[in-house]
């Protein structure tokens, strides 16, 4: 709070530096995963049903560089990281960067679509239940979101598929279509997975919205807005919601981050070629370069999201903003 004037670029540089340090820490943790996670990828690499000789195992280890001292491995790995070289998938030597490049946009797209759905459902639901606190409307809205919360996505997805594609034939049951090949179809295929994910997420958003709105609705300034003759809708959507936004934004940020690596079930269910599936597959097969690359990517996104959320706090609450500068 000193009168020191921090320039925008200095602030950005500092944030960037922090993010890099965070990434470095994550990278190091991720690297050490290899040594603490149970299970050895070599057996899988040599084929699931085979009878490999000890020489073959040794050869594979040396091919993966696993026979070198840990610190050497770490040094090499770090050097590669600095060149944005995440290495290659241990199975076929396909560059991890390529995997990420193809998976990431899809994951992002699905995540954003899902979060959009969640917001569009969750926020109004939460608002309604806050405004009608203690009435049947509140109870119904609470029940709907609770069901959304307690029904696992695979069941919700299965229901959606049965209803909208097998019965009504409105939407395709699964698959992905390149945007460039057929934009309409591309979005049609996005609908079901996005709704499946978004519905569950909307529950938390609506709960948080309800609670946070209630906090604000009893503030005195709401009375002032009414005295100005502002319509209830505008009071709620413009003023109360904005005052109540911080916890909501927090939870949306958390969910968005989670979606980066947490859409496996839905991706698998709808055959959506995203990063989550890749990552989980890589984890379960101990495909370490891919695990490391994947987590670092997700971490970078997460840090970005958190940064965004933090900035949003500032935008939403001038006190937090002024404190920071």
């Amino acid at each position, binding site marked *: 709070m000193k009168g020191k004037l921090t320039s925008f670029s200095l602030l950005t540089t500092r944030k960037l530096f922090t993010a890099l340090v965070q990434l470095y820490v994550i990278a190091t943790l991720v690297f050490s995963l290899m040594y603490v996670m149970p299970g050895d990828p070599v*057996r899988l690499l040599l084929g699931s049903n085979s009878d*490999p000789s000890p020489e073959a195992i040794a050869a594979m280890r040396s091919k993966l560089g696993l026979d070198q001292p840990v610190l050497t491995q770490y040094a090499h790995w770090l050097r590669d990281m600095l060149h944005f070289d995440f290495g290659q998938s241990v*199975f076929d030597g396909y560059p991890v960067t390529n995997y990420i490049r193809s998976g990431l946009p899809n994951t992002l797209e699905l995540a954003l679509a899902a979060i959009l759905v969640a917001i569009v459902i969750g926020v109004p639901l939460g608002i309604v239940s806050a405004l009608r606190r203690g009435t049947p409307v509140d109870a119904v809205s609470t029940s709907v979101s609770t069901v959304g919360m307690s029904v696992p996505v695979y069941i919700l997805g299965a229901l959606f598929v049965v209803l909208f594609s*097998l019965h009504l034939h409105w939407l395709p*049951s*699964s698959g*992905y279509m390149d945007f460039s090949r057929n934009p309409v179809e591309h979005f049609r295929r996005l609908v079901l997975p996005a709704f499946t994910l978004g519905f569950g997420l909307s529950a938390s958003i609506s709960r948080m919205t309800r609670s946070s709105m209630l906090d604000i609705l009893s503030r005195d300034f709401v009375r002032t807005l009414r005295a100005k003759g502002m319509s209830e809708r505008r009071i709620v959507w413009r003023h109360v919601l904005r005052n109540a936004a911080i916890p909501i934004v927090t939870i949306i940020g958390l969910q968005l981050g989670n979606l980066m690596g947490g859409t496996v079930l839905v991706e698998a269910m709808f055959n959506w*070629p995203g990063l989550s599936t890749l990552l989980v597959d890589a984890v379960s097969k101990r495909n370490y370069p891919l695990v490391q690359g994947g987590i670092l990517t997700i971490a970078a996104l997460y840090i970005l999201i958190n940064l965004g959320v933090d900035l949003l706090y500032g935008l939403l609450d001038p006190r937090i903003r002024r404190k920071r500068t």
Partner: protein
Amino acid sequence: AGNTLYFGLSGEPSTMDPFIMTGTTFRTVKLAIFRGLVNYGVDGKLSPELAQSYELSPDGKTLTFHLRDAKFHDGSTVTAADVKATFDHIMAPNSTASFRNQFVIVDHIDVVDPKTIRFVLKQPSVSFIHYLALPEAVIVPAAWLAKHKDDAGTATPIGAGPFKFVRWTRGRELVVQKFDGYYKKGKPYVDEIVYNFYSDENTRVNAIKSGDVDIIDYVPSRSLAELQKDPDVRLERTLGPFMGIVFNMHSKPFANADVRRAIAYTVDRDAIVKTAVDGVGTPIWGLAIPQGYLGYSDAKKNFYKVDIARAKQLMAQAGYPNGFEARLVATSQYSFYSKIAVVLQAQLAQIGIKLKLDMPDWTTRTSKVAGGDYELAIIGDVGEVTDPDWLSNVYYGGKVPVRLSNSAYFDDPEIDRLLDEGRASVDPAKRAVVYQQFVDRALDLSPVLFLMWRDQSYAVRSNVTGFTNMPAFLSFQSGYSLENTRLK
């Protein structure tokens, strides 16, 4: 293209390196692109492919192949030099080829002329030819190998099979296209195969039901009934892989054959089939030798039966009248493993064996089993070849627990001798006798306990013909029949 076959695979190949075996999905792709000297045909017999014919010398030590006029996808002709280069690559000391171990008995390979090649073995082996039929022993151009020594996993694969590789968009699809220069005239019948990957079982089943794909593999057992009823879909079923229990001989109770026999008398395989795999499968009360294979006999088919009294007596005889505690390694990643484990736990409790279940994820489980870190473990396997030598993989003894499918540290000289003899005997009658003796010994010692045959089904839409689910152990090689597949 109008004549495109869509194939829904249960997973995505993890590599394009033809010499590595990473499961069924890749074999299905591989057998569209590559051919070996020989392969298993749809009838389950060895079928001459790139080799027009071959001879085995009477001492069983020399195999000579005569190549046919075939072309690789790059236009070059298949020559003996390509064959030699391929096998040299597989057998190289630092090779990571999956079946390298089966080739170490090759002493050397001679290129007799561009169309003739000779394999000289260290010991006589009748079964060796079968390993040449594996999809992991396919022939690639020598030039390709030289160029792609290090990036075989990602390089564009070149084979001499019916389809050529077009593209692989990871996470989405793999496309192959009809190869006009395929040596079987007129084949293949479809212009293009698009492989899609459906790791989720329900999604895969939905995809065949809705007609998004024409064929799917690994039909989940619980969906069989439902698909059976679907008029648009035909099931190609076979009993391929088997499930069993292996014992760690370093665990005191299980080193005792009586305990293993007692367990064999206790486990109700019927119950396991009914519960763990939804009734789709066949119990195995003896050894997992498919009918028609050497070593199969009706008489020994039901060697063990449920006989708790007998089992208890055996336990007492072994010194465990009150049972003991043991750790069973399975996995919770695949439900049939965990269900078998739960059923086993309940059943073995009858003779006082209290099982503690250790059910990590698949990879952890695999390293545990490979490292002998278990007392008993559930395995699932398939004999890779139709020759009875596949039994070596399960029974051949060793001082280290390297193989996934044998009981850790099990080492019986008599069994090893019989397996060696069986492999080396050229005379079929003698082989029959040897393997009969083997079966008796294996049943008696019961180092591996077989539970059941698992169903291995493909679902095919009714407008598709010519796709064959190859019988028994060969089910995983059914991709071979894609060259016969037609679309109506």
